[in-house]
Protein backbone atom coordinates (compact mmCIF):
# COMPACT_ATOMS: atom_id res chain seq x y z
CA UNK A 1 0.00 0.00 0.00
CA UNK A 2 2.69 2.43 1.00
CA UNK A 3 4.64 1.84 -2.15
CA UNK A 4 1.78 2.96 -4.34
CA UNK A 5 1.19 5.96 -2.20
CA UNK A 6 4.69 7.25 -2.55
CA UNK A 7 4.51 7.35 -6.32
CA UNK A 8 1.40 9.45 -6.08
CA UNK A 9 3.02 12.71 -5.16
CA UNK A 10 1.26 15.29 -3.10
CA UNK A 11 -1.80 16.42 -4.95
CA UNK A 12 -1.76 19.97 -6.27
CA UNK A 13 -3.82 22.59 -4.52
CA UNK A 14 -7.51 21.82 -4.87
CA UNK A 15 -9.90 23.84 -6.94
CA UNK A 16 -10.23 27.55 -6.44
CA UNK A 17 -13.42 27.73 -4.37
CA UNK A 18 -11.94 25.85 -1.42
CA UNK A 19 -8.43 27.10 -1.87
CA UNK A 20 -8.86 30.08 0.36
CA UNK A 21 -6.91 28.25 3.09
CA UNK A 22 -4.10 25.73 3.29
CA UNK A 23 -5.16 22.08 3.52
CA UNK A 24 -4.20 20.53 6.85
CA UNK A 25 -5.43 17.01 6.35
CA UNK A 26 -6.62 15.24 3.26
CA UNK A 27 -8.44 11.90 3.13
CA UNK A 28 -8.29 10.12 -0.22
CA UNK A 29 -10.42 7.13 -1.15
CA UNK A 30 -10.28 5.61 2.30
CA UNK A 31 -12.02 2.27 2.95
CA UNK A 32 -12.10 0.41 6.25
CA UNK A 33 -13.66 -2.92 7.15
CA UNK A 34 -13.77 -5.25 10.14
CA UNK A 35 -13.65 -8.89 9.17
CA UNK A 36 -15.69 -8.30 5.99
CA UNK A 37 -18.04 -5.70 7.43
CA UNK A 38 -17.45 -2.40 5.68
CA UNK A 39 -17.40 0.54 8.04
CA UNK A 40 -16.15 3.16 5.58
CA UNK A 41 -16.26 2.94 1.80
CA UNK A 42 -14.14 5.06 -0.50
CA UNK A 43 -14.36 8.35 1.30
CA UNK A 44 -12.42 11.48 0.35
CA UNK A 45 -12.50 14.93 1.90
CA UNK A 46 -10.15 17.47 3.35
CA UNK A 47 -9.81 19.67 6.40
CA UNK A 48 -8.40 23.15 5.96
CA UNK A 49 -6.28 25.00 8.41
CA UNK A 50 -8.26 27.12 10.84
CA UNK A 51 -11.72 25.91 9.92
CA UNK A 52 -14.37 24.09 11.90
CA UNK A 53 -15.24 21.02 9.92
CA UNK A 54 -18.30 18.98 10.90
CA UNK A 55 -18.84 15.31 10.13
CA UNK A 56 -22.48 14.36 10.37
CA UNK A 57 -24.67 11.43 9.52
CA UNK A 58 -27.17 9.02 11.03
CA UNK A 59 -26.16 6.43 13.63
CA UNK A 60 -23.80 3.83 12.24
CA UNK A 61 -22.74 6.04 9.36
CA UNK A 62 -19.05 5.54 10.17
CA UNK A 63 -18.32 8.93 11.73
CA UNK A 64 -16.42 7.69 14.76
CA UNK A 65 -14.57 5.18 12.60
CA UNK A 66 -13.54 8.11 10.41
CA UNK A 67 -12.12 9.95 13.43
CA UNK A 68 -10.35 6.79 14.49
CA UNK A 69 -8.77 6.58 11.06
CA UNK A 70 -7.71 10.21 11.19
CA UNK A 71 -5.88 9.82 14.47
CA UNK A 72 -4.32 6.54 13.54
CA UNK A 73 -6.23 4.22 15.83
CA UNK A 74 -7.66 2.26 12.90
CA UNK A 75 -5.68 1.55 9.77
CA UNK A 76 -7.70 1.78 6.56
CA UNK A 77 -7.31 -1.10 4.13
CA UNK A 78 -7.35 1.28 1.20
CA UNK A 79 -6.72 4.93 0.54
CA UNK A 80 -4.29 7.49 1.85
CA UNK A 81 -4.21 10.21 4.41
CA UNK A 82 -2.18 13.31 3.76
CA UNK A 83 -1.21 15.25 6.85
CA UNK A 84 0.31 18.71 6.48
CA UNK A 85 1.24 18.02 2.91
CA UNK A 86 2.84 14.62 3.49
CA UNK A 87 1.30 11.25 2.83
CA UNK A 88 1.12 9.53 6.18
CA UNK A 89 2.52 6.05 6.60
CA UNK A 90 0.79 3.46 8.76
CA UNK A 91 1.47 4.82 12.20
CA UNK A 92 1.00 3.78 15.80
CA UNK A 93 -1.86 5.43 17.67
CA UNK A 94 0.55 7.22 20.02
CA UNK A 95 2.20 8.99 17.08
CA UNK A 96 -0.95 11.00 16.36
CA UNK A 97 -0.38 13.07 19.45
CA UNK A 98 3.16 14.01 18.52
CA UNK A 99 1.84 14.91 15.05
CA UNK A 100 -0.43 17.43 16.71
CA UNK A 101 -3.77 15.66 16.64
CA UNK A 102 -5.82 15.64 19.85
CA UNK A 103 -9.32 14.41 20.45
CA UNK A 104 -12.20 13.88 22.79
CA UNK A 105 -14.35 10.81 22.90
CA UNK A 106 -17.98 9.93 22.37
CA UNK A 107 -18.19 8.16 25.75
CA UNK A 108 -16.04 10.29 28.00
CA UNK A 109 -12.62 8.68 28.24
CA UNK A 110 -11.15 10.57 31.17
CA UNK A 111 -8.70 9.02 33.61
CA UNK A 112 -11.23 8.27 36.31
CA UNK A 113 -8.83 7.77 39.18
CA UNK A 114 -7.18 11.17 38.71
CA UNK A 115 -8.21 14.72 39.58
CA UNK A 116 -9.27 17.34 37.08
CA UNK A 117 -5.88 18.98 37.39
CA UNK A 118 -4.01 15.73 36.77
CA UNK A 119 -6.23 14.90 33.83
CA UNK A 120 -5.43 18.16 32.16
CA UNK A 121 -1.77 17.90 33.14
CA UNK A 122 -1.75 14.52 31.42
CA UNK A 123 -2.34 16.42 28.20
CA UNK A 124 1.12 17.95 28.67
CA UNK A 125 2.80 14.55 28.87
CA UNK A 126 4.39 14.82 25.46
CA UNK A 127 5.75 18.26 26.16
CA UNK A 128 7.51 17.26 29.35
CA UNK A 129 10.92 15.71 29.05
CA UNK A 130 12.66 15.40 32.39
CA UNK A 131 13.73 11.79 32.63
CA UNK A 132 13.22 9.23 35.33
CA UNK A 133 16.22 10.22 37.39
CA UNK A 134 15.24 13.87 37.53
CA UNK A 135 11.77 12.71 38.52
CA UNK A 136 13.23 10.65 41.37
CA UNK A 137 15.00 13.71 42.64
CA UNK A 138 12.00 16.00 42.01
CA UNK A 139 13.50 19.13 43.53
CA UNK A 140 15.07 21.23 40.82
CA UNK A 141 14.49 20.59 37.13
CA UNK A 142 11.57 18.18 37.42
CA UNK A 143 9.66 20.42 39.79
CA UNK A 144 10.39 23.50 37.68
CA UNK A 145 9.18 21.79 34.56
CA UNK A 146 6.05 20.74 36.39
CA UNK A 147 5.40 24.31 37.52
CA UNK A 148 5.97 25.71 34.07
CA UNK A 149 3.38 23.37 32.62
CA UNK A 150 1.09 23.89 35.52
CA UNK A 151 0.87 27.55 34.49
CA UNK A 152 -0.31 26.58 31.04
CA UNK A 153 -2.81 24.18 32.52
CA UNK A 154 -4.14 26.83 34.88
CA UNK A 155 -4.75 29.07 31.86
CA UNK A 156 -6.89 26.33 30.36
CA UNK A 157 -8.68 25.83 33.65
CA UNK A 158 -9.47 29.53 33.74
CA UNK A 159 -10.55 29.51 30.12
CA UNK A 160 -12.97 26.63 30.73
CA UNK A 161 -14.13 28.07 34.05
CA UNK A 162 -13.50 24.91 36.04
CA UNK A 163 -11.33 26.37 38.81
CA UNK A 164 -13.58 25.02 41.55
CA UNK A 165 -13.20 21.39 40.58
CA UNK A 166 -9.44 21.47 40.15
CA UNK A 167 -8.76 18.93 42.91
CA UNK A 168 -11.86 16.77 42.46
CA UNK A 169 -11.44 13.25 41.11
CA UNK A 170 -13.14 13.34 37.72
CA UNK A 171 -15.16 10.20 38.44
CA UNK A 172 -17.26 12.26 40.83
CA UNK A 173 -18.08 15.06 38.37
CA UNK A 174 -21.38 15.40 36.54
CA UNK A 175 -21.37 14.42 32.89
CA UNK A 176 -21.37 17.91 31.47
CA UNK A 177 -18.31 18.91 33.48
CA UNK A 178 -16.53 15.71 32.52
CA UNK A 179 -16.96 16.65 28.87
CA UNK A 180 -15.51 20.05 29.64
CA UNK A 181 -12.51 18.53 31.43
CA UNK A 182 -11.99 16.25 28.48
CA UNK A 183 -11.92 19.27 26.19
CA UNK A 184 -9.41 20.86 28.52
CA UNK A 185 -7.24 17.79 28.39
CA UNK A 186 -7.24 17.87 24.59
CA UNK A 187 -6.47 21.62 24.59
CA UNK A 188 -3.53 21.07 26.92
CA UNK A 189 -1.88 19.20 24.08
CA UNK A 190 -1.96 22.44 22.03
CA UNK A 191 -2.94 20.48 18.94
CA UNK A 192 -2.95 21.58 15.31
CA UNK A 193 -6.10 19.55 14.77
CA UNK A 194 -8.68 18.95 17.43
CA UNK A 195 -11.13 16.10 16.90
CA UNK A 196 -14.34 16.34 18.92
CA UNK A 197 -16.58 13.29 19.00
CA UNK A 198 -20.08 14.44 19.94
CA UNK A 199 -18.90 17.13 22.38
CA UNK A 200 -22.47 18.02 23.28
CA UNK A 201 -24.12 14.63 23.57
CA UNK A 202 -26.35 14.35 26.60
CA UNK A 203 -26.12 18.02 27.53
CA UNK A 204 -28.90 20.39 28.38
CA UNK A 205 -29.35 23.59 26.42
CA UNK A 206 -27.33 25.75 28.78
CA UNK A 207 -24.42 23.36 28.76
CA UNK A 208 -24.58 23.16 25.00
CA UNK A 209 -24.37 26.93 24.74
CA UNK A 210 -21.33 26.96 27.01
CA UNK A 211 -19.65 24.22 25.03
CA UNK A 212 -20.40 25.93 21.71
CA UNK A 213 -18.85 29.10 23.02
CA UNK A 214 -15.72 27.23 24.10
CA UNK A 215 -15.40 25.59 20.69
CA UNK A 216 -15.71 28.86 18.84
CA UNK A 217 -13.28 30.53 21.22
CA UNK A 218 -10.76 27.78 20.80
CA UNK A 219 -11.04 28.09 17.06
CA UNK A 220 -10.76 31.84 17.02
CA UNK A 221 -8.43 32.64 19.93
CA UNK A 222 -5.96 29.79 19.51
CA UNK A 223 -6.54 29.31 15.80
CA UNK A 224 -6.98 25.59 16.30
CA UNK A 225 -8.46 23.61 13.44
CA UNK A 226 -11.42 21.56 14.63
CA UNK A 227 -13.19 18.54 13.21
CA UNK A 228 -16.32 17.60 15.09
CA UNK A 229 -19.04 15.01 15.02
CA UNK A 230 -22.39 16.23 16.28
CA UNK A 231 -25.99 15.19 16.08
CA UNK A 232 -27.53 18.51 16.99
CA UNK A 233 -28.10 20.07 13.56
CA UNK A 234 -28.61 23.51 14.95
CA UNK A 235 -25.21 23.49 16.55
CA UNK A 236 -23.56 22.06 13.46
CA UNK A 237 -25.07 24.65 11.16
CA UNK A 238 -24.13 27.51 13.48
CA UNK A 239 -20.58 26.45 14.26
CA UNK A 240 -19.12 24.80 11.24
CA UNK A 241 -17.54 26.29 8.16
CA UNK A 242 -18.03 23.14 6.08
CA UNK A 243 -19.90 19.90 6.60
CA UNK A 244 -19.27 16.40 5.29
CA UNK A 245 -22.20 13.97 5.44
CA UNK A 246 -21.76 10.21 5.76
CA UNK A 247 -24.36 7.49 5.42
CA UNK A 248 -23.71 3.76 5.61
CA UNK A 249 -19.99 4.44 5.38
CA UNK A 250 -20.28 6.47 2.19
CA UNK A 251 -19.94 10.20 1.66
CA UNK A 252 -23.19 11.61 0.38
CA UNK A 253 -22.52 15.33 0.58
CA UNK A 254 -19.76 17.85 1.29
CA UNK A 255 -19.92 21.62 1.44
CA UNK A 256 -21.00 24.70 3.39
CA UNK A 257 -23.83 24.10 5.90
CA UNK A 258 -26.61 25.79 3.95
CA UNK A 259 -25.72 23.87 0.80
CA UNK A 260 -25.64 20.53 2.60
CA UNK A 261 -28.90 21.32 4.33
CA UNK A 262 -30.60 21.60 1.00
CA UNK A 263 -29.13 18.43 -0.45
CA UNK A 264 -31.82 15.85 -1.26
CA UNK A 265 -29.59 12.85 -0.41
CA UNK A 266 -28.96 14.26 3.03
CA UNK A 267 -32.63 14.83 3.65
CA UNK A 268 -33.37 11.27 2.52
CA UNK A 269 -30.67 9.84 4.72
CA UNK A 270 -32.00 11.58 7.79
CA UNK A 271 -35.60 10.72 7.01
CA UNK A 272 -34.63 7.13 6.37
CA UNK A 273 -35.59 6.66 2.71
CA UNK A 274 -34.79 3.09 1.71
CA UNK A 275 -31.87 2.54 -0.57
Amino acid at each position, binding site marked *: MNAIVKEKAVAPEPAAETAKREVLLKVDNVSLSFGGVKAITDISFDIQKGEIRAIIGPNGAGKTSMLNVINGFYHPQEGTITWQGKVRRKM*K*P*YEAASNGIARTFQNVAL*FKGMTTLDNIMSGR*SLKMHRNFFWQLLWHGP*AANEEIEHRKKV*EEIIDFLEIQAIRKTPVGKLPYGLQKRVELGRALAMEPDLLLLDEPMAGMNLEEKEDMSRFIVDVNQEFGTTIALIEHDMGVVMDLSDRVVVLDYGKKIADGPPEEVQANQDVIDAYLGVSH
Partner: protein
Amino acid sequence: MFYREAGQFKTSYKADQALMPILQDRVGLAVILIIAFAVIPATANDFFLTSIMIPFLVFSLAAIGLNILTGFCGQLSLGTGAFMGVGAYAAYKLTSIFPDANVIVMVLLSGVFSAAIGAVFGLPSLRIKGLYLAVTTLAAQFFLEWCFIRIPWLYNYNASGAIEVPHREVFGIVASGAEATPLARYFIVLGITVFIALLMANVLRGRIGRSWMMIRDMDIAAELMGIRPLRTKLMAFAVSSYICGVAGAMMVFFWLNAAEPSSYSIRLSFQILFMVILGGLGSLSGAFMGAAFIWILPVILKFVPGLMGIDLAAETIEHATFMIVGALIIFFLIVEPHGFARLWAIAKQKLRVWPFPY
Protein backbone atom coordinates in the same frame (compact mmCIF):
# COMPACT_ATOMS: atom_id res chain seq x y z
CA MET B 1 -11.54 20.70 64.84
CA PHE B 2 -7.88 19.74 64.95
CA TYR B 3 -7.72 18.61 61.39
CA ARG B 4 -8.59 21.75 59.46
CA GLU B 5 -6.97 23.14 56.44
CA ALA B 6 -8.86 26.41 56.66
CA GLY B 7 -6.51 29.35 56.74
CA GLN B 8 -3.73 27.46 55.00
CA PHE B 9 -3.47 29.18 51.64
CA LYS B 10 -1.04 28.18 49.01
CA THR B 11 0.60 31.10 47.41
CA SER B 12 2.49 29.29 44.70
CA TYR B 13 2.07 26.28 42.50
CA LYS B 14 5.17 24.95 44.12
CA ALA B 15 3.55 24.88 47.53
CA ASP B 16 0.47 23.30 46.03
CA GLN B 17 2.56 20.49 44.58
CA ALA B 18 4.16 19.54 47.85
CA LEU B 19 3.73 15.94 48.92
CA MET B 20 1.61 16.95 51.86
CA PRO B 21 0.02 20.32 51.33
CA ILE B 22 -1.81 20.26 54.65
CA LEU B 23 0.11 21.20 57.78
CA GLN B 24 -1.44 18.53 60.00
CA ASP B 25 -0.36 15.79 57.57
CA ARG B 26 3.18 17.04 57.66
CA VAL B 27 3.13 17.06 61.44
CA GLY B 28 1.69 13.56 61.44
CA LEU B 29 4.42 12.28 59.15
CA ALA B 30 7.06 13.93 61.29
CA VAL B 31 5.66 12.23 64.38
CA ILE B 32 5.66 8.84 62.63
CA LEU B 33 9.24 9.34 61.50
CA ILE B 34 10.32 10.35 64.99
CA ILE B 35 8.67 7.23 66.38
CA ALA B 36 10.31 5.08 63.74
CA PHE B 37 13.78 6.56 64.02
CA ALA B 38 13.95 7.38 67.72
CA VAL B 39 11.20 6.00 69.91
CA ILE B 40 11.14 2.43 68.64
CA PRO B 41 14.92 1.96 68.65
CA ALA B 42 15.06 3.33 72.18
CA THR B 43 12.33 1.21 73.65
CA ALA B 44 11.70 -1.94 71.62
CA ASN B 45 13.07 -5.37 72.47
CA ASP B 46 14.74 -7.72 70.00
CA PHE B 47 11.58 -9.64 69.27
CA PHE B 48 9.69 -6.50 68.41
CA LEU B 49 12.45 -5.37 66.08
CA THR B 50 13.22 -8.64 64.34
CA SER B 51 9.82 -10.24 64.17
CA ILE B 52 7.56 -7.24 63.81
CA MET B 53 9.30 -4.11 62.57
CA ILE B 54 11.89 -5.53 60.17
CA PRO B 55 9.47 -7.86 58.36
CA PHE B 56 6.85 -5.13 58.37
CA LEU B 57 9.22 -2.71 56.65
CA VAL B 58 10.43 -5.33 54.17
CA PHE B 59 6.87 -6.20 53.27
CA SER B 60 5.90 -2.55 53.06
CA LEU B 61 8.62 -1.95 50.52
CA ALA B 62 7.59 -5.00 48.50
CA ALA B 63 4.00 -3.82 48.66
CA ILE B 64 5.07 -0.41 47.37
CA GLY B 65 6.81 -2.22 44.52
CA LEU B 66 3.76 -4.25 43.59
CA ASN B 67 1.55 -1.21 44.07
CA ILE B 68 3.51 0.66 41.40
CA LEU B 69 2.67 -2.08 38.94
CA THR B 70 -0.81 -3.13 40.01
CA GLY B 71 -2.14 -0.10 41.85
CA PHE B 72 -0.68 2.69 39.72
CA CYS B 73 -0.20 1.06 36.33
CA GLY B 74 -3.06 -1.44 36.51
CA GLN B 75 -1.08 -4.54 35.58
CA LEU B 76 -1.95 -7.52 37.80
CA SER B 77 1.10 -9.50 38.89
CA LEU B 78 1.33 -12.79 40.75
CA GLY B 79 5.09 -13.07 40.34
CA THR B 80 6.19 -10.71 43.10
CA GLY B 81 7.73 -13.54 45.13
CA ALA B 82 9.98 -14.58 42.28
CA PHE B 83 11.05 -11.01 41.52
CA MET B 84 11.95 -10.63 45.19
CA GLY B 85 13.89 -13.87 44.84
CA VAL B 86 15.84 -12.50 41.90
CA GLY B 87 16.88 -9.57 44.08
CA ALA B 88 17.90 -11.90 46.89
CA TYR B 89 19.97 -14.17 44.69
CA ALA B 90 21.51 -11.23 42.87
CA ALA B 91 22.49 -9.59 46.15
CA TYR B 92 23.95 -12.90 47.32
CA LYS B 93 26.02 -13.30 44.17
CA LEU B 94 27.14 -9.68 44.27
CA THR B 95 28.35 -9.92 47.85
CA SER B 96 30.24 -13.11 47.12
CA ILE B 97 31.83 -11.68 43.98
CA PHE B 98 32.69 -8.37 45.64
CA PRO B 99 33.25 -9.37 49.26
CA ASP B 100 34.66 -5.99 50.25
CA ALA B 101 31.90 -3.86 48.84
CA ASN B 102 29.36 -2.10 50.99
CA VAL B 103 26.53 -4.56 51.53
CA ILE B 104 23.87 -1.85 51.48
CA VAL B 105 25.06 -0.74 48.06
CA MET B 106 24.97 -4.35 46.90
CA VAL B 107 21.41 -4.74 48.11
CA LEU B 108 20.39 -1.57 46.29
CA LEU B 109 22.19 -2.77 43.19
CA SER B 110 20.56 -6.17 43.25
CA GLY B 111 17.27 -4.57 42.30
CA VAL B 112 18.74 -3.73 38.90
CA PHE B 113 18.80 -7.43 38.05
CA SER B 114 15.24 -8.02 39.08
CA ALA B 115 14.25 -4.90 37.14
CA ALA B 116 15.75 -6.42 34.00
CA ILE B 117 14.04 -9.76 34.54
CA GLY B 118 10.79 -8.04 35.45
CA ALA B 119 10.91 -6.05 32.22
CA VAL B 120 11.42 -9.24 30.20
CA PHE B 121 8.36 -10.84 31.75
CA GLY B 122 6.49 -7.58 31.25
CA LEU B 123 6.89 -7.79 27.48
CA PRO B 124 3.71 -9.82 26.90
CA SER B 125 1.74 -7.12 28.73
CA LEU B 126 1.44 -5.26 25.44
CA ARG B 127 -0.86 -7.93 24.08
CA ILE B 128 -2.23 -9.56 27.19
CA LYS B 129 -4.38 -7.79 29.73
CA GLY B 130 -6.09 -8.26 33.09
CA LEU B 131 -6.44 -11.72 34.55
CA TYR B 132 -4.80 -13.09 31.42
CA LEU B 133 -1.66 -11.21 32.32
CA ALA B 134 -1.66 -13.03 35.65
CA VAL B 135 -0.66 -16.18 33.81
CA THR B 136 2.45 -14.50 32.43
CA THR B 137 3.55 -13.48 35.86
CA LEU B 138 2.68 -16.93 37.22
CA ALA B 139 4.89 -18.39 34.52
CA ALA B 140 7.63 -16.07 35.77
CA GLN B 141 6.98 -17.16 39.33
CA PHE B 142 7.26 -20.88 38.72
CA PHE B 143 10.01 -20.67 36.13
CA LEU B 144 12.24 -18.45 38.26
CA GLU B 145 11.63 -20.61 41.32
CA TRP B 146 12.77 -23.58 39.24
CA CYS B 147 15.88 -21.64 38.22
CA PHE B 148 16.73 -20.90 41.86
CA ILE B 149 16.84 -24.64 42.45
CA ARG B 150 18.40 -25.75 39.19
CA ILE B 151 21.17 -23.25 38.64
CA PRO B 152 23.68 -24.11 41.38
CA TRP B 153 25.84 -21.16 40.38
CA LEU B 154 23.17 -18.92 41.87
CA TYR B 155 23.72 -20.36 45.32
CA ASN B 156 27.47 -20.85 44.94
CA TYR B 157 27.11 -24.63 44.72
CA ASN B 158 26.22 -24.85 48.41
CA ALA B 159 25.42 -28.40 49.42
CA SER B 160 22.37 -27.10 51.24
CA GLY B 161 20.95 -25.54 48.10
CA ALA B 162 20.26 -22.39 50.05
CA ILE B 163 21.82 -18.96 50.25
CA GLU B 164 23.38 -18.06 53.54
CA VAL B 165 24.01 -14.45 54.34
CA PRO B 166 27.67 -13.68 54.93
CA HIS B 167 29.07 -11.50 57.66
CA ARG B 168 29.52 -7.96 56.35
CA GLU B 169 30.41 -4.71 58.00
CA VAL B 170 29.49 -1.21 56.97
CA PHE B 171 31.60 1.57 58.49
CA GLY B 172 32.71 -0.76 61.24
CA ILE B 173 29.19 -1.81 62.19
CA VAL B 174 28.10 -5.36 61.51
CA ALA B 175 25.30 -5.02 58.97
CA SER B 176 24.51 -8.57 57.98
CA GLY B 177 25.12 -12.07 59.19
CA ALA B 178 24.38 -13.58 62.56
CA GLU B 179 26.29 -10.98 64.56
CA ALA B 180 24.39 -8.03 63.17
CA THR B 181 22.32 -6.56 65.96
CA PRO B 182 18.59 -6.22 65.43
CA LEU B 183 18.98 -2.50 65.88
CA ALA B 184 21.56 -2.16 63.10
CA ARG B 185 19.45 -4.23 60.75
CA TYR B 186 16.36 -2.24 61.69
CA PHE B 187 18.02 1.05 60.87
CA ILE B 188 19.25 -0.21 57.51
CA VAL B 189 15.84 -1.59 56.57
CA LEU B 190 14.08 1.52 57.80
CA GLY B 191 16.49 3.78 55.95
CA ILE B 192 16.16 1.96 52.64
CA THR B 193 12.39 1.71 52.89
CA VAL B 194 11.86 5.35 53.74
CA PHE B 195 14.35 6.46 51.09
CA ILE B 196 12.71 4.44 48.30
CA ALA B 197 9.22 5.40 49.46
CA LEU B 198 10.16 9.09 49.21
CA LEU B 199 11.68 8.65 45.75
CA MET B 200 8.55 6.89 44.62
CA ALA B 201 6.37 9.64 46.03
CA ASN B 202 8.37 11.99 43.82
CA VAL B 203 8.00 9.90 40.70
CA LEU B 204 4.31 9.39 41.26
CA ARG B 205 3.48 13.09 41.43
CA GLY B 206 5.29 13.84 38.18
CA ARG B 207 5.03 13.07 34.52
CA ILE B 208 5.96 9.38 34.77
CA GLY B 209 3.61 8.62 37.61
CA ARG B 210 0.84 10.29 35.65
CA SER B 211 1.59 8.26 32.56
CA TRP B 212 1.27 5.04 34.59
CA MET B 213 -2.09 6.12 35.94
CA MET B 214 -3.21 7.11 32.44
CA ILE B 215 -2.49 3.57 31.25
CA ARG B 216 -4.28 2.18 34.28
CA ASP B 217 -7.40 4.28 33.93
CA MET B 218 -7.90 4.21 30.17
CA ASP B 219 -5.13 2.72 28.14
CA ILE B 220 -6.55 3.61 24.72
CA ALA B 221 -7.05 7.26 25.57
CA ALA B 222 -3.56 7.37 27.03
CA GLU B 223 -2.14 5.95 23.84
CA LEU B 224 -3.96 8.51 21.71
CA MET B 225 -2.46 11.20 23.90
CA GLY B 226 0.99 10.12 22.98
CA ILE B 227 1.82 7.67 25.75
CA ARG B 228 3.74 4.72 24.37
CA PRO B 229 2.04 1.78 26.04
CA LEU B 230 4.86 -0.73 25.87
CA ARG B 231 7.52 1.67 27.06
CA THR B 232 5.35 2.91 29.90
CA LYS B 233 4.29 -0.55 31.02
CA LEU B 234 7.82 -1.90 30.83
CA MET B 235 9.02 1.00 32.88
CA ALA B 236 6.40 0.19 35.51
CA PHE B 237 7.46 -3.45 35.42
CA ALA B 238 11.10 -2.48 35.80
CA VAL B 239 10.58 0.03 38.59
CA SER B 240 8.22 -2.29 40.41
CA SER B 241 10.58 -5.24 40.06
CA TYR B 242 13.50 -3.12 41.18
CA ILE B 243 11.74 -2.26 44.41
CA CYS B 244 10.55 -5.83 44.92
CA GLY B 245 14.07 -7.05 44.26
CA VAL B 246 15.53 -4.73 46.88
CA ALA B 247 12.82 -5.86 49.30
CA GLY B 248 13.66 -9.50 48.53
CA ALA B 249 17.35 -8.89 49.11
CA MET B 250 16.57 -7.11 52.38
CA MET B 251 14.35 -10.01 53.35
CA VAL B 252 17.23 -12.47 53.30
CA PHE B 253 20.07 -10.13 54.29
CA PHE B 254 18.48 -8.28 57.18
CA TRP B 255 15.69 -10.55 58.30
CA LEU B 256 15.85 -14.28 57.53
CA ASN B 257 19.64 -14.72 57.29
CA ALA B 258 19.27 -17.71 54.98
CA ALA B 259 16.81 -18.54 52.26
CA GLU B 260 15.77 -21.52 50.26
CA PRO B 261 13.97 -21.15 46.94
CA SER B 262 10.75 -21.96 48.76
CA SER B 263 11.14 -18.71 50.71
CA TYR B 264 10.24 -16.94 47.45
CA SER B 265 7.32 -19.12 46.51
CA ILE B 266 3.89 -18.23 45.20
CA ARG B 267 2.75 -17.85 48.80
CA LEU B 268 4.96 -14.79 49.15
CA SER B 269 3.46 -13.36 45.95
CA PHE B 270 0.00 -13.69 47.39
CA GLN B 271 1.06 -12.32 50.75
CA ILE B 272 2.23 -9.12 49.04
CA LEU B 273 -0.84 -8.94 46.82
CA PHE B 274 -3.10 -9.13 49.89
CA MET B 275 -1.20 -6.25 51.43
CA VAL B 276 -1.57 -4.12 48.33
CA ILE B 277 -5.28 -4.73 47.87
CA LEU B 278 -6.21 -4.42 51.53
CA GLY B 279 -4.06 -1.36 51.97
CA GLY B 280 -5.53 0.26 48.90
CA LEU B 281 -4.55 0.02 45.26
CA GLY B 282 -2.77 3.12 44.15
CA SER B 283 -1.76 4.41 47.55
CA LEU B 284 1.71 4.52 49.03
CA SER B 285 0.53 4.87 52.61
CA GLY B 286 -1.89 2.02 51.91
CA ALA B 287 1.07 -0.26 51.26
CA PHE B 288 2.27 0.34 54.81
CA MET B 289 -1.18 -0.18 56.27
CA GLY B 290 -1.72 -3.38 54.30
CA ALA B 291 1.64 -4.76 55.38
CA ALA B 292 0.83 -3.96 58.97
CA PHE B 293 -2.49 -5.74 58.73
CA ILE B 294 -1.26 -8.90 57.03
CA TRP B 295 2.01 -9.27 58.93
CA ILE B 296 1.65 -7.62 62.32
CA LEU B 297 -1.93 -8.60 63.11
CA PRO B 298 -1.34 -12.39 63.12
CA VAL B 299 1.89 -12.05 65.09
CA ILE B 300 0.18 -9.98 67.72
CA LEU B 301 -2.98 -12.08 67.80
CA LYS B 302 -0.89 -15.00 68.99
CA PHE B 303 -0.14 -13.23 72.25
CA VAL B 304 -3.74 -12.41 73.05
CA PRO B 305 -4.95 -15.75 74.49
CA GLY B 306 -1.82 -16.17 76.62
CA LEU B 307 -2.13 -12.73 78.15
CA MET B 308 -5.81 -13.20 78.84
CA GLY B 309 -4.95 -16.35 80.75
CA ILE B 310 -6.42 -18.77 78.23
CA ASP B 311 -4.21 -21.76 77.52
CA LEU B 312 -4.58 -22.75 73.90
CA ALA B 313 -2.50 -25.18 71.91
CA ALA B 314 -0.14 -23.55 69.41
CA GLU B 315 -1.98 -25.02 66.44
CA THR B 316 -5.37 -23.90 67.70
CA ILE B 317 -4.10 -20.35 67.86
CA GLU B 318 -2.79 -20.75 64.33
CA HIS B 319 -6.16 -22.02 63.12
CA ALA B 320 -7.97 -19.22 64.90
CA THR B 321 -5.56 -16.68 63.42
CA PHE B 322 -6.29 -17.94 59.93
CA MET B 323 -10.02 -17.73 60.50
CA ILE B 324 -9.87 -14.28 62.06
CA VAL B 325 -7.63 -12.85 59.36
CA GLY B 326 -9.85 -14.37 56.65
CA ALA B 327 -12.98 -12.98 58.24
CA LEU B 328 -11.38 -9.57 58.73
CA ILE B 329 -10.30 -9.43 55.08
CA ILE B 330 -13.89 -9.99 53.99
CA PHE B 331 -15.17 -7.62 56.65
CA PHE B 332 -12.90 -4.77 55.61
CA LEU B 333 -13.64 -5.32 51.94
CA ILE B 334 -17.33 -4.97 52.70
CA VAL B 335 -16.80 -1.88 54.84
CA GLU B 336 -14.42 -0.21 52.39
CA PRO B 337 -13.48 -2.03 49.21
CA HIS B 338 -10.85 0.52 48.35
CA GLY B 339 -8.65 -0.39 51.23
CA PHE B 340 -7.34 1.16 54.39
CA ALA B 341 -5.99 4.17 52.54
CA ARG B 342 -9.52 5.17 51.54
CA LEU B 343 -10.78 4.39 55.03
CA TRP B 344 -8.15 6.74 56.37
CA ALA B 345 -9.07 9.42 53.86
CA ILE B 346 -12.73 9.15 54.90
CA ALA B 347 -11.73 9.36 58.53
CA LYS B 348 -9.76 12.52 57.77
CA GLN B 349 -12.72 13.96 55.92
CA LYS B 350 -14.90 13.29 58.97
CA LEU B 351 -12.31 14.93 61.20
CA ARG B 352 -12.20 17.94 58.95
CA VAL B 353 -15.88 18.67 59.36
CA TRP B 354 -16.11 17.55 62.96
CA PRO B 355 -18.04 18.40 65.08
CA PHE B 356 -20.56 19.49 62.46
CA PRO B 357 -21.14 16.65 60.06
CA TYR B 358 -22.79 18.87 57.41
